[in-house]
């Protein structure tokens, strides 16, 4: 049952492989970025940005392409931490911390628990015609459309502005007070629903008998 899951005996191999792949991908990019930085072609901030972008896109590709579910979930962690780094580069440190707390601490744990509890080891093999060519076409279309739009549009040359934390809190709990309450109710209802759904469902007769 757990043959394909990364139990401790397999952990060192997985970590070695992951580190090797990450090093092979990141090493040349890091060297190229440092060379460009030395040649004063790009600034230090851009070096960090391109590193974070590489981590995000590499992790995302791993999350959608790896067929082992646990590897895909671990790859998702890299993406989400890279997204937190991007939030920091956008000068919103509060959201970066929330991202790490909620995703690194909550969502990833939930996903990995879901993987273990459903005993899913590999992505199911499609038997009646794969959707992958169609999916690739749609993905390429979306990427091309959005990238073209972002590059062609006239954005002006404003830089990122630091939003002071007290102002953010005032805006969040002042102007957006009602939506915050609604989101609180949403979370409450969602997790109650999840509990009710995931509760070990006895057969109806046994449930009646227990009462």
């Amino acid at each position, binding site marked *: 049952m757990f043959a394909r899951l990364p139990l401790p005996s397999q952990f060192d191999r997985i970590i070695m492989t992951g580190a090797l792949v990450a090093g092979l991908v990141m090493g040349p990019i890091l060297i190229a970025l440092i060379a460009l930085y030395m040649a004063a072609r790009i600034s230090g901030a851009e070096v960090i940005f391109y590193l974070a972008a590489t981590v995000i896109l590499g992790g995302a590709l791993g*999350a959608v392409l790896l067929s082992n579910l646990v590897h895909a979930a671990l790859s998702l962690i890299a993406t989400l931490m890279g997204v937190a780094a991007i939030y920091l580069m956008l000068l919103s440190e509060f959201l970066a911390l929330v991202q790490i707390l909620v995703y690194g601490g909550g969502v990833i744990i939930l996903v990995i628990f879901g993987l273990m509890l459903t005993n899913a080891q590999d992505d199911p093999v499609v038997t009646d015609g794969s959707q992958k060519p169609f999916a690739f076409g749609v993905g390429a279309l979306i990427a091309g459309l959005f990238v073209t739009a972002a590059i062609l549009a006239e954005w002006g040359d404003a830089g990122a502005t630091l939003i002071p934390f007290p102002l953010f809190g005032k805006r969040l709990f002042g102007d957006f007070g009602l939506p915050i309450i609604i989101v609180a109710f949403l979370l409450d209802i969602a997790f109650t629903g999840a509990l009710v759904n995931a509760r070990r469902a006895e057969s109806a007769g046994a449930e009646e008998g227990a009462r």
Partner: protein
Amino acid sequence: MIPIQSFLVLSALLFAIGFYGVLARRSAILILISVELMLAAVAINFIAFATYRDPKAFSGLVFALFVIAVAAAEVGLALGIVLRLFRERRTANVDEANSLKW
């Protein structure tokens, strides 16, 4: 200084990769992971527009926070449903959950 286009292009690529995952994957949990990627891309866009184009009102920051909260709720609820599905059918493959398919 990094131009805003860099962030928008990054988020567009991330969104496209997530979209590919949603369409191509068969395991319900991997589809959930792909949806997470798409939501992260949307949040990057929100924050980029808030800090670059709208520093006075910065509604994008608040919406990014809402996106994170709704994503957490979605993951919790969807995993509950996937667990239930697995218990009823012994599978987490979305192709086999087709009772509502006409």
